[in-house]
C-alpha cells in the first residue's frame, strides 16, 4: 500500500466501537501496568525519604546489591560471548542438526525457574550426583555464589542468541565476504565489520539479558540458601523484608529493581529506534 494514500473510511471503526475498545484497553493497561508501577514507588516512600534511604543503604541491602551486580557481571558477558558465537555459527554455516541446536538454545525459556534451580541442586547439592566429591574437595556450589551464578546463567541463556540470529540472518554475509576478499583476517573482520553491523541488536539482547539476570527470583531462590549478607540477591532481599512485615523497606529495595525495569524499557525503545534508522542504510549497502 502506498503511504501517501489516506486510509479509506471503510477501514475506520465506527466511533462507538473505537471509544469502547479504547476504553477497555486503557482500563486494562491502567489496572495491570500503570497502577502497580505507581504503587511500587508510592509504597517505597510511604514513610518518607529518610526511611527509604536507610532501607537501601542498610548493610544487608548493600550486600544484596553487590551480590546481584557480581552475578550479572559474570553471567551476562558469558551469555553474550556464547550468543555471538552461536549466532555466527547458525547464520553463517550450514551443518546437520542446525534446527535442533536452535531449539536447544531456546530450551531454558520453556523451563520453570524453579526447575532451573532444581537441576543444579540435583547435580551439585549435598545429595546430588557430584555432591560428595565436591564436599571432599571443599567446594561449595549450592547455597553459595557459584550456584547463584549458574542458575542465573541458565535462565538468561537464550536472550542474546535469540536477538542476534534473526538479525544476522536478515543482514546476510556479503560485507564479511568482501572484507575477507580485501585481505582482512578473521578477527579483524569480526571487530571491524561484524560487530559494528550487529551492534544495536547485540545491545538489545544484552539489555534484556541483564534485566532478567538482575531480577531473577525463582531459580536463585532454590540454590541460594537465603543467607543474609552472603547469598541474598536483591530480589531475595525483597522477599525476606516483605515476609518480615517490613513492607516499606521491601518496597524501597523493590523500587530500585523497578527503576532498572523502567531504564530497560527506555533503552529498549532507544535501541529499537536506532535499529530502525540503521536498517535502510544496511539494506542500501
Amino acid at each position, binding site marked *: 500500500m502506498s503511504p501517501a494514500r489516506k486510509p479509506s473510511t471503510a*477501514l475506520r471503526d465506527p466511533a462507538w466501537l473505537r471509544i469502547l475498545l479504547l476504553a477497555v*484497553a486503557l482500563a486494562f*493497561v491502567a489496572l495491570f*501496568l500503570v497502577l502497580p*508501577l505507581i504503587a511500587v514507588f508510592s509504597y517505597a516512600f510511604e514513610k518518607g525519604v529518610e526511611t527509604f534511604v536507610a532501607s537501601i543503604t542498610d548493610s544487608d541491602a548493600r550486600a544484596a546489591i553487590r551480590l546481584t551486580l557480581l552475578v550479572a557481571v559474570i553471567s551476562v558477558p558469558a551469555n553474550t560471548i556464547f550468543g555471538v558465537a552461536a549466532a555466527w555459527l547458525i547464520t553463517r554455516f550450514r551443518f546437520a542438526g542446525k534446527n535442533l541446536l536452535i531449539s536447544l538454545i531456546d530450551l531454558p525459556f520453556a523451563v520453570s525457574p*524453579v*526447575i532451573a534451580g532444581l537441576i543444579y541442586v540435583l547435580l551439585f547439592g549435598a545429595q546430588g550426583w557430584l555432591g560428595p566429591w565436591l564436599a571432599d574437595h571443599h567446594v561449595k556450589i549450592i547455597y553459595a555464589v557459584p550456584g547463584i551464578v549458574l542458575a542465573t546463567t541458565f535462565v538468561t541463556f537464550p536472550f542474546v542468541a535469540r536477538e542476534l540470529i534473526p538479525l544476522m540472518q536478515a543482514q546476510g554475509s556479503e560485507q564479511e565476504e568482501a572484507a575477507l576478499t580485501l585481505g582482512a583476517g578473521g578477527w579483524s573482520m569480526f571487530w571491524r565489520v561484524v560487530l559494528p553491523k550487529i551492534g544495536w541488536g547485540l545491545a538489545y539482547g544484552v539489555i534484556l539479558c541483564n534485566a532478567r539476570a538482575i531480577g531473577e527470583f525463582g531459580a536463585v531462590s532454590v540454590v541460594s540458601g537465603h543467607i543474609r549478607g552472603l547469598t541474598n540477591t536483591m530480589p531475595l532481599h525483597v522477599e525476606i523484608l*516483605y515476609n518480615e512485615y517490613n513492607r516499606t523497606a521491601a518496597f524501597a529495595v523493590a523500587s530500585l529493581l523497578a527503576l532498572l525495569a523502567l531504564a530497560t524499557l527506555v533503552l529498549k525503545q532507544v535501541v529499537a529506534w536506532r535499529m530502525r534508522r540503521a536498517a535502510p542504510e544496511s539494506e542500501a549497502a
Partner: protein
Amino acid sequence: MRRRRRHALPGFGLTLGLSLSYLALIVLIPLAALVLKSATIGPLAFWDAVTSPRALASYRVTFGCAALAGLVNLVLGPLLAWVLVRYRFPGRKLIDALVDLPFALPTAVAGITLTALYASNGWLGRWIEAAGYKIAYRPAGITVALIFVSLPFLVRSVQPVLEQLEPDIEEAAATLGAGRLRTLVSVILPTLWPAIVTGFSLAFARAVGEYGSVIFIAGNLPMVSEIAPLLIVTKLDAFDYAGATAIAVVLLLTSFAALLAINLFQLWTVRHRTAEAR
C-alpha cells in the same frame, strides 16, 4: 544462493566448539541430571509422587489459573494490539513501551506489589472486599499475577501481524456490504488466529512455570492455593529430591507440550497456506 566454498567464512570450528560445550555445560548436562534422577526413582514411587492428592491439587491450581489468565489475555491482548496499531491517541507510544513491563519487572517486585494492591487494606482490595469479593490469598489472586506476567505474549505476537495486514480485504468486505464489526469478526480475526494461538501457548507455558510473582499473592494453602512450582520448592526444602524431581518432570512435559503444539500448528498453517496458494 551460495556460490562459494562450503565454509568460505572463518570461525566454524571455534564457534561450533564454543557453542556446543557451553550449551552442554549450562543447559544439557544439568537437565540430564533431572532425567537421570527421575529414572532412578522407580516407576511406582514416581507414579505415587506424581499422583498424590496434594500434587494433583497443585496441578489443578497451576493449570487452571494459567489457562484462565491465558483466556483473559486471549481477549484483551489482541484488543490492546488492535488499539495500539489502528488508533492514534495521546500516550500511545508510552503504552506500547509499557506493554513490555512484565518482561522487565523482576517477578518478586510484581508479586509483592500485586499483593499489596489486592490485599484487604490495599488500594484495590478494599473496594473489591466492599463489594463482597476477595482476590488476594486465593486462586483468584494467582490468576491476577499470571495475567500480569503473561500479558505481553499475546499483544506482541498479534501486533506485527496487524501491522502488516493489507487493507484490501477489509475494503472488499466493506464494498460487499459487511458492517465494520462483521468485518472485524469474520475477516480480520481469522487472519490473526495463528498469532493468537502462538501467543496463548507461550503465555500458558510461561504461566505454568511462574513462581516469583505468584507465591506472595497465592496464600499457598496446600490443596487450595498451592502452585506446582511451590510444591517442588517445598519438597526440596524437606530434602525430598525424588518427589521434587517427579513433579518437575510433569511441569516440564506440560511446557514442552505447549511449545511443541505451537511448532506443529505453525507447520500446519504454513502448509495450509502454500496449499491454498497453489
